[in-house]
């Protein structure tokens, strides 16, 4: 594997990992696979894009980066909006199924429907034509040994590290993190222990949506922004979440990096059209060899 493929794989893997954290948290708390999660990625990117284009200021490239100072701010606002979108989707759709005690398959199919609807809405508003945050070309920084990375890529890796550490600390050191882990293990006992499960559910949706938006902005910077950008990431997201072990945040990010590296390897050795097959191969291998994932506990 060439050094360049490693850098590309790490960056793509961070993006996948950030998305996979949301998938894994939603699954561990609400026990269903949310197929609409990819849409939070796309909506996050479009939220940021809309802000940047409407405000139209702060676009001059900032130092070595390809974007101006407005984009990081827009990304933060987009994360908040995408988190709100996730809570809204839960309020309008999933919460009523939960209240009725609907079967998991109904939730999964509903999420699939929501995914189509959210994507169609993006196509309606923004058309399906790809758009870009920036068209600046970047000069890669050489690290020796053939390793090169653009300043954007380095920033994305650093941002991912910061976000993952922050989420990890939130889960392990704070009251809401304890409550999330408690609900994930035993929601009934959590209620008895005084945990407001509704608040925990909203928090999980918000975090998942916000991290997805971060991944979306990264994907927009690295590649392009299109309505299908999130949906196309769905398979890698699930591969990463399952590889890492459902419920595990470090697992999701590590799973994302493994999937990202496999994709980069496939692109380099077989061809770019095999990128998606790499995620599928990882997913299949995990399900056969270690269904509980790297960090997961075997579930009843």
């Amino acid at each position: 594997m060439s050094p360049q493929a490693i850098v590309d794989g790490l960056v793509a893997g961070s993006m996948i990992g950030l998305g996979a954290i949301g998938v894994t948290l939603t699954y561990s708390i609400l026990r269903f696979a949310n197929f609409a999660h990819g849409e939070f990625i796309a909506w996050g990117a479009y939220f940021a894009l809309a802000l940047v284009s409407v405000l139209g200021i702060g676009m001059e490239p900032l130092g070595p980066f390809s974007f101006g100072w407005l984009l990081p701010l827009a990304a933060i606002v987009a994360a908040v909006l995408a988190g709100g979108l996730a809570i809204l989707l839960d309020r309008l759709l999933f919460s009523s199924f939960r209240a009725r005690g609907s079967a998991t398959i109904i939730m999964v199919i509903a999420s699939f429907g929501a995914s189509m609807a959210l994507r169609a809405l993006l196509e309606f508003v923004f058309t399906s034509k790809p758009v870009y945050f920036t068209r600046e070309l970047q000069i890669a920084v050489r690290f020796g040994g053939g390793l090169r990375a653009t300043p954007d890529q380095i920033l994305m890796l650093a941002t991912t590290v910061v976000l993952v550490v922050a989420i990890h600390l939130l889960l392990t050191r704070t009251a809401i993190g304890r409550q999330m882990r408690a609900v994930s293990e035993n929601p009934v006992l959590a209620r008895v222990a005084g945990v407001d499960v509704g608040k925990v559910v909203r928090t999980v949706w918000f975090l998942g949506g916000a991290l997805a938006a971060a991944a979306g902005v990264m994907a927009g910077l690295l590649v392009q922004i299109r309505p299908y950008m999130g949906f196309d990431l769905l398979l890698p997201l699930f591969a990463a979440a399952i590889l890492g072990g459902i419920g595990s945040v470090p697992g999701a990010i590590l799973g994302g990096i493994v999937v990202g590296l496999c994709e980069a390897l496939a692109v380099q050795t077989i061809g770019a059209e095999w990128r998606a097959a790499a995620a599928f191969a990882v997913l299949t291998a995990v399900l056969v060899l270690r269904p509980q994932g790297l960090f997961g506990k075997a579930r009843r």
Partner: protein
Amino acid sequence: MSAAAVPSPALAVAGLVAGYERDLPIVKGVDLVVGAGEFLAILGPNGAGKSTLAKAIAGLVSIHSGELALGTRDIAGLPAHELVRSGLAFVPQTENIFATLTIQENLQLCADVLPAARRGERIEAAYAMFPDLGARRTIAAGALSGGQRQMLATARALLVEPSVMILDEPSAGLSPKLVGEVFETLLRINEQGVTVILVEQNVRAALAVTRSALVLCDGRVVHRGPAAGLADDPRLGEMFLGRYEGQAA
């Protein structure tokens, strides 16, 4: 014991109908007044609805009709997590601790409902009462033995200084020696002024510590009276079969 002898009630249940499905009541009209400081055993055959009654009071099973008051507060329909804040603690029969959380985290989780200033002090009080737990704060609760788990579950419930504490078969799966220890602990808790309601299959051991008893059969109260003497009462077997109506509450 007549109702008049009971001091101001800690918990009052009237005409309670509750169950898991709309048209299938499991608790079929229960009236029950539990005095402040009382130590009550709820007995009855398997499937009588004891656990369902306890869960309905704790806000975990939906109430179809009836009234429920904790002290002077109407609590029917309140979500379980708010009941904890109003002073009602419930210890479920199985899975009553968070196995993936440490002992400390199990207690912190419950302490989070208290004002920040009192959390540390309440957790230390729990460790003082259960020194075995204090010595192993950072280990995962899943590694505890059956008796220690029951201690942790009890400590967790006590953390919020409840006025009423309901335990569902805390003796299940424990050795007779440990059952004795658990019941001794409950007696101590009761002596500190907490109203304790003990749902039990272990009739003899339960009646040895509790002061009063209620027998539930097929979702209805068939007997309510003092605990003393009930274990040797020849009519108890009949009550369990629902053939004998004892003194009503």
